[in-house]
């Protein structure tokens, strides 16, 4: 009984501490991403890799049309000359701009405070994590996400997405979600954890480049960089520094306005951890 109460009050004090101090402050890592839109060809390989790595269900044409698909990594197309070739938007002379969009792992994530059961929270790795087992599917988090990157399991897809023997190719490192839970990009948390365990067993720190997300691994033009922002030698840290983008700010003070780095919806002060490098186009 005493251990029961002890657990409860320990959980309570941890909770109030996190509440008062705005979540974890003692980050062990701060995983972040850099995506160079100039290199992105919009080939969708990252999205496919994500499907394969993270056991994403293919929902079929009907549900996809109803916008009930679950593509954690999606390639968005934008046309900067909407009036050119208006009749057929896909054949505009300059083509589309592509934006790979996935969970931005906001440090001040709007999805976290609204979850009634605290199924989404911030890990000491700086990740915005989703606990599928805890989720009751109130879907408030998705409503509060400005990026609309949280996907809900509107149906059970196990039977249709992986008919036997297809279930043999599921990734054993992560779960297959059932209907009624929210899911989203985890920055391939299974790979992060595996690398951490390996490093711990070998008694060393995680090396930069040791962790590759599935999208990064697959990108044919290497447009995606992933790493630890707290590690000053990491390529990601260097890129953020080079583009003069800092965490914890809603407006960046850049000495060189030519620098391409920007974060989406920075003005909302959600403090995202994906740095996009603007596409350069001829005038």
């Amino acid at each position, binding site marked *: 009984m005493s251990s029961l109460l002890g657990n409860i009050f320990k*959980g309570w004090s941890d909770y109030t501490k996190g509440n008062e101090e705005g979540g974890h402050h003692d980050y062990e890592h701060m995983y972040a991403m850099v995506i160079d839109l100039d290199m992105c060809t919009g080939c969708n390989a990252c999205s496919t890799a994500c499907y394969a790595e993270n056991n994403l269900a293919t929902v079929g044409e009907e549900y996809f049309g109803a916008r*009930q698909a679950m593509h954690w990594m999606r390639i968005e197309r934008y046309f900067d000359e909407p009036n050119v070739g208006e009749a057929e938007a896909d054949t505009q002379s300059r083509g589309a701009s592509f934006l790979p969009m996935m969970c931005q792992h906001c440090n001040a994530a709007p999805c976290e405070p609204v979850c009634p*059961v605290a199924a989404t929270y911030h890990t000491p790795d700086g990740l915005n994590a989703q606990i599928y087992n805890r989720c009751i599917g109130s879907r*408030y988090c998705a409503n*509060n996400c400005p990026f*609309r990157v949280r996907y809900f399991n509107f149906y059970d897809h196990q039977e249709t997405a992986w008919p036997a023997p297809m279930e043999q190719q599921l990734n054993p490192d992560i779960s297959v979600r059932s*209907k*009624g839970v929210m899911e989203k990009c985890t920055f391939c948390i299974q790979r992060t954890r595996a690398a951490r365990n390996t490093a711990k067993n070998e008694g060393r720190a995680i090396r930069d480049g040791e962790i590759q997300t599935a999208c990064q691994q697959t990108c044919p033009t290497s447009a995606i960089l992933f790493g630890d922002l707290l590690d000053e030698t990491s390529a990601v840290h260097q890129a953020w520094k080079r583009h003069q983008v800092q965490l914890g700010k809603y407006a960046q003070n850049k000495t060189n306005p030519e620098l391409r780095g920007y974060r989406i919806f920075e003005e909302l002060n959600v403090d995202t951890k994906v740095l996009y490098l603007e596409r350069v186009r001829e005038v």
Partner: protein
Amino acid sequence: MSDRKHLTREQTKDIDENIAWASINTDVLRSMENPRRGYWVAMAVSVCLFSVMIYAEVYQYMYGMGAALLNTSHMWDLYISTFVFWIGMSHSGTLLSAILHLVHADWRKPIYRFAEAMTTFSLMTAGIFPVIHLGRVWNFYWVMPYMTDRGIWPNFRSPLIWDAFAITTYLTSSVLFLYIGMIPDLAICRDNAKGWRKPLYTWLSLGWRGDDRQWRNFRFTYLMIACFLIPLAVSVHSIVSMDFAMSIMPGWHVTTFPPYFVAGALYSGCAAIITLFILLRYFFKFEHYMTFPILDKVCKLTFVIAMVWTYLNLVEFASVWYGHDIPSKEVLIAKATGPYSPFFWGMMTFGSVLPFSLLSKWVRRNMYVLFFASIFLNVGMWLERWMIVTPTLSLGYHPQAFNVMWPGWTEWAMVGGSFGWFGMLFLIFVKVFPCVSMYEVKEMVFHRKRTIYEDVDEMMTLHSGVPGPKAQAQTQTSGGA
């Protein structure tokens, strides 16, 4: 019944103070017996609607939320807007019972009982929606902070948790309020009951004999709960509004939402009181109790609240329009011009223009016109809730996710079914419990008989020997001149 002149539209007195106490008992007890064919038809319709809801819920439980046609941008839709609608309906009872009780507006007495029942039942209806809209409905109790050895707590920062607390508290208190206010009447029922009703009322009336001590305790308890209930009613709908106001979405993140929601709640509650007032008066022949002058007062109250609601609505539009938040402005413009605009303008027409008809005495004294007007006021309020939830989600911040969605069949089934469930509860209530407060109507008649004078001024002069306020004012004016 020979003289029915005072029951017509020309009636000026709230109640005929010469009604015999015995006939009050007879009239009300009669209404609880012998359900006629119309009652069973209404009951059958309600049960059918509710069965459709059960079917939809079973379907949703088996196959998932997809049939509601929710999508990645529209995670909430009619479930949440109908939830807000029913929570709003529940505010009428508190207004009539508690607030008007405290300000000694005695015209509430013949009509507060069914309004209170409406409060309780609409809360019971509203409470269904946050549960059925959950993806994993079987885990709904996880929002409650119960003791587990895993030491896991719900997230107290989430407005949905506040909702759970607020609604549970409000439901408990309003059930208590309804029940306690009914005890003296239950004793009357017990004294006149036969068959299965006898043990029921004996048990429920808690040995009420009507002695002084019981009355004193009763009055005190009733007043206490009334005082407790008023802040609760304000807080519960403020908290419901925080489901939206605490988010960061354009069109939801609005500071004026709590008062706006409370005003909307009182508004739809009053409109629903008018609807049920007319139905009860017509079907139960309650012309002696639910009189036109009382209806008149309820209409005026509704009009005032409608204007408060309209004002807060315009304040919201103005603050968005003159603010510099572009996404919010886009949502506002899309409401007025986009695919949902017919519903938006429907809401504005029914919510802000239609109440002006209540200014007409002809409308206020015409049951048929008023019945449909009150229905459409509530249609407007339902549209309001829908127009809060859906247009915001159809736009939001991220352009790639902009889309228009229309509710799926499970959503319509649940909305219809909620009216069935409410109707079912209310129909059972009116036949098992007295829907007019007998003891309070007797009080009202008694007080009115003693204090109704044609000329108050004259009576004051007569009783106290000093000139009344009117005469005093007259002397002052003439003295000054």
